[in-house]
């Protein structure tokens, strides 16, 4: 195995593009090293991107936030501005693993690992986040939902690296929230994850909303019918029931060691309702 630590994105993409065998990007390593340990992968090349200038920082601009690919999730929680604007995204990022994992793991890694149960992905999808991709043929920006194609598989082409996650500036009266269900209180992989992002009008009526679910289908899913169920409402009981029903209906889960089909369907609706209420409150709704 070769280990490289390039100082620039250009060098990183060149290394990845030129790799003969299997090549992997190392940022936090909390998925990569586990897969190496388990013998699931045997990289010929590991490209550590942490020495790339600027890739380890969170930048705030007039358009919103740019979160570098090597920013550990713990650092997201330490950014007051980010936490204020996107509390749901930050709380999702901070649910990944323990404090020890938090010190290493990144949301870009969480996304590119392409697990159906990734905690940060539903929150990023609900937030309509985009990713900046650098590659041998130049850069491109795509929506977060276009990255993961299937479990373990992304739309990234050979030599490409996700450089950063981009989050828009928030309109007034906006809030987001992410909840997940795990059997213990910490350390588990999500059995169900639900993210809600919404914006209210002056009267406190939901003007726009996005609802996303994790761990209930091969990839995280955006549930438009669930969002529509709460748009135009103040999250009254029937609206929340319709939201829960739409979420349960959208699930295409499996029975596995972490949960059953019935459980995931039911709890997806329950969590979406609870997340919607938190997001609503954060947006200033009463």
């Amino acid at each position, binding site marked *: *195995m*070769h*280990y490289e*630590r390039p100082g620039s994105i250009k060098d990183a993409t060149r290394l990845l593009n030129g790799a003969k065998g299997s090549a992997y990007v*190392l940022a*936090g*390593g*909390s998925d990569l*090293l*586990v897969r*190496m*340990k*388990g013998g699931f992968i045997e990289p010929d090349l*590991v490209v*550590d991107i*942490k020495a790339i200038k600027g890739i380890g920082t969170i930048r705030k601009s007039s358009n919103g936030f740019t979160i570098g690919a090597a920013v*550990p999730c*713990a650092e997201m929680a330490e950014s007051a501005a980010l936490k204020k604007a996107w509390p749901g995204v930050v709380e999702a990022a901070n649910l990944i*693993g*323990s*404090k*020890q*994992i938090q*010190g*290493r793991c990144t949301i870009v890694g969480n996304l590119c690992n392409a697990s159906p149960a990734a905690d940060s992905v539903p929150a990023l999808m609900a937030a309509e986040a985009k990713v900046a991709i650098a590659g041998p043929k130049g850069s491109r920006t795509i929506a977060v939902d276009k990255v993961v194609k299937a479990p373990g598989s992304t739309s990234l082409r050979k030599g490409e690296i996700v450089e950063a996650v981009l989050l828009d500036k928030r309109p007034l009266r906006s809030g987001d929230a992410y909840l997940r269900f795990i059997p213990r*209180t*910490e*350390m588990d992989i999500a059995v169900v994850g639900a993210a809600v992002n919404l914006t209210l009008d002056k009267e406190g009526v939901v003007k726009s909303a996005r609802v996303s679910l994790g761990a209930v289908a091969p990839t995280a899913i955006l549930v438009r019918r669930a969002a529509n169920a709460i748009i135009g409402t103040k999250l009254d009981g029937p609206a929340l029931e319709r939201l829960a029903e739409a979420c349960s209906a959208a699930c295409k889960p499996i029975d596995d060691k972490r949960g059953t089909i019935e459980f995931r369907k039911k709890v997806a609706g329950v969590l979406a309702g609870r997340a919607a209420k938190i997001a609503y409150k954060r947006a200033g709704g009463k």
Partner: protein
Amino acid sequence: MTAIAVSTTINGDDIEVLCQTEETLLDVLRDRLGLTGAKEGCGTGDCGACSVIVDGRLVCACLVLGAEAEGRRIETIEGMAKGDELHPLQSSFLEHAALQCGVCTPGFLIAAKDLLERNPDPSEEEIRFALAGNLCRCTGYDKIVRAVQDAATVMKGG
């Protein structure tokens, strides 16, 4: 060429070590440098027994490549006491009998030290969630939590 020379700082000492590229920081500490205080309980970041601090961040040494230690500052359990003088957390763990088998203890101490440096006055709930990445199978955590609470009081000068 898959061996790599790494220059790093461990508990304040400058260290140079040659390791294989796929070796973890935990392998390097334990097998190359004889620092066996950090334990491998799982090798997958689930138990926290290998907790160390890298550039001020609490991490599992089993999920860091040895090669990544280049130019970093690493703190391990072996550096926690200052000579003969135990860290207040170490004393508190002893006084509260917060260890039975003791294999998880180095990881708990490092994680608790990281917690108290960030939050000198944590609630019981904050302590429990901050230490959730460290598994203990002997104690039921009761005496560990009490030891951390007490150490926090001592460190605040109470």
